[in-house]
């Protein structure tokens, strides 16, 4: 049995890992909530963002956290453009087609990255990657503390955008009633694209937080998105609060199960939860009952 201190630290580690999961899930759930489709290209976009952080560091010598300043707007623009001029037109309004278009897009992006960067894993070395923050007897990894903080700030910002701004109201209106929204003069295609932009911008933040402690290769995003899907289902499809709480919860579960079952089996707990939620509460923790 482990001492309470060790368990506490493992759970905190999980919380901090979960924060980054939550960021990835936020974008996914937002797009689902508004467009009612699962964006299969989300993982590929995350990989693009991570390569962006790596390039900024490798070519411009830019600190990974600082590169958010570039990455967030760039990813937002990429998301907007992808929905407005590729996914939207190609799907011709049919939800099923959107799903397939995003899947196709993800394959194109993944292979494009493979051609550009090969399958090498790339990492960023920073002085602070292995620094610790001492909180009483606990030694917390510095990049993870930053990750947790940034994820919470991002979630709050997202909440403010959705609830306190005009575009947020428009997004919620489109999510509730597409036809009604367009009748009162909301440009639905624009709102769709903005939703994609916000979701992708979240990935820009996630990528910058991940790179100091993680590696990137063309398939990296897929692993995170698999976890993010679980989080979206757990939290409730389309729920921002659900994505945040679900993300943190999944992080803790992964950390705890890797402490007790070993790192090789660390993710087993996540997928057990995934199946359990689907069986017992298909709408998720914060999902609207249908």
């Amino acid at each position, binding site marked *: 049995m*482990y001492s309470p201190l060790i368990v506490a630290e*493992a759970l905190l*580690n999980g919380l901090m890992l979960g924060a980054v999961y939550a960021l990835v899930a936020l974008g996914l759930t937002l797009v689902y909530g508004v467009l009612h489709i699962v964006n299969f290209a989300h993982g590929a976009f995350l990989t693009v963002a991570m390569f962006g952080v790596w390039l900024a560091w490798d070519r411009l010598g830019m600190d990974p956290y600082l590169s958010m300043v570039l990455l967030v707007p760039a990813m937002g623009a990429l998301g907007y453009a992808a929905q407005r001029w590729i996914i939207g037109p190609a799907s011709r309004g049919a939800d099923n087609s959107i799903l397939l278009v995003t899947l196709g897009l993800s394959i194109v992006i993944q292979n494009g990255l493979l051609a550009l960067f090969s*399958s090498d*894993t790339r990492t960023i070395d920073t002085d602070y990657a*292995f620094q*610790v923050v001492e909180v009483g007897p606990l030694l917390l990894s510095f990049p993870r503390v930053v990750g947790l903080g940034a994820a919470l700030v991002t979630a709050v910002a997202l909440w403010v955008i959705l609830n306190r701004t005009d575009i947020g109201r428009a997004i919620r209106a489109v999510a509730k009633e597409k036809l009604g929204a367009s009748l009162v003069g909301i440009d639905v295609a624009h709102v769709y694209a903005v939703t994609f932009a916000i979701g992708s911008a979240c990935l820009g933040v996630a990528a910058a937080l991940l790179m100091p402690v993680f*590696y990137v*290769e063309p398939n990296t995003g897929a692993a995170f998105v698999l976890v993010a899907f679980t989080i979206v289902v757990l939290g409730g499809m389309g729920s921002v609060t659900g994505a945040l709480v679900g993300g943190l919860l999944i992080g803790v579960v992964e950390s705890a199960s890797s402490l007790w079952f070993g790192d090789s089996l660390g993710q087993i707990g996540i997928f057990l939860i995934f199946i359990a939620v689907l069986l017992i509460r298909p709408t998720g923790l914060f999902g609207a009952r249908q």
Partner: protein
Amino acid sequence: MTDMFRTPTRRAVLRGGAAAAVTALAAPAVLRAQPAAVKIGLLQPLSGFLAQAGDLARVGAEFAVKEINDAGGIKALGGAPVELVVGDSRSNAEAGAQATEELNSAGVVAIGGGFASGISLTATQAAARYDLPFLVDSAVADSITQRDLANTFRFGPNFSMATEIALANLVKLNDAAGSPAKTVALVHEDGLFGSGLAKLMQEKLPGLGFEIVEVISHPTPARDMSNVALRLRSLQPDLIIPSHYYNEFVLLARTLQQQRVKPKGIYAIFGGAASSYQFVKEYPDAAEGVFDCNHWGDPSNPIDAALQAEVEAQGKFYAYNAPINYSLVKVLAEAVEKAGAADRAAVTEQLASAEFASGVMPYGTTKFDASGQNASALPLNTQVQGGEIKVIYPAEYAQTEPKFPV
């Protein structure tokens, strides 16, 4: 002094004359046709998460090829030059088999390399279909040479040989220091290499007076070692025995340092980074004092130093992949030389029966046993001391005394 002015003996004069005659006779042949190059394949992971190891191996192999060609190529084939054909196993077993097929199509007479156990298993099997001799470099899984494949040979030591030596040396190290280490934690990657080694350790260590307090496995590539470090911090083992590839070793060592886990020693067996100058130079604090029992070149061999200089001149960090692949290409070239033909069956026959020089590896005379294992292969024990990787055991290769507890 007298020797220098000694008049040449009649025999020496005759020998010189004969050599001159041969050269004169050979000269027109050279003008007419350069003998066809002998193609030797090198299978290494040049991309993917093991790319660094493969890259160093290539440098070593190229160094050997240059040396052989500068010295006049394969003499039995009229000075035919050796041409290295490099295949990329992309750090995975399927691609390794594919690359072996490509090397076969390229018409190589033999393949050297493999690097990782999983890749070597599939690659040797693919080569067996074409009766293409395959000399494995550093992959250690015992099973590689236990499948009755006539084409498969291993230059370096296998698991069983290496762990036996590693454990004997561990006991020696501990005894010499007054037996400070009693509890051990094993941390290993969950592939063929790490799990196999951990299993062997679990069988052997208790009999040697060590108590295993924990066995921790993790996937490769690993994302995070925080929980591993936490468990180790909670258990406080005297000794940590890790076996994994480069990135994971670095991650573990740095996380241990971050979490202030300070065992009496880290005793790696085939530790991915403990015998790599990249780790030692980039993270000197995390690396200091780490022991390893691993493939390693003979430090007293001047070619080993020349090879290290070559690697560093290319802006790379030295590790064992360079010397072992240098030596392996030398063995394959010698096999072609002895076979007198760039013929796969003849080379296999030579590898199975003849004796070979071991390049810069501390193997004495290389001789492959019935299973294809080099019976004289030997790992060396090293310790990082003052930013240098020093050989501590066995005595005949030792450069310094071990420091234990660290």
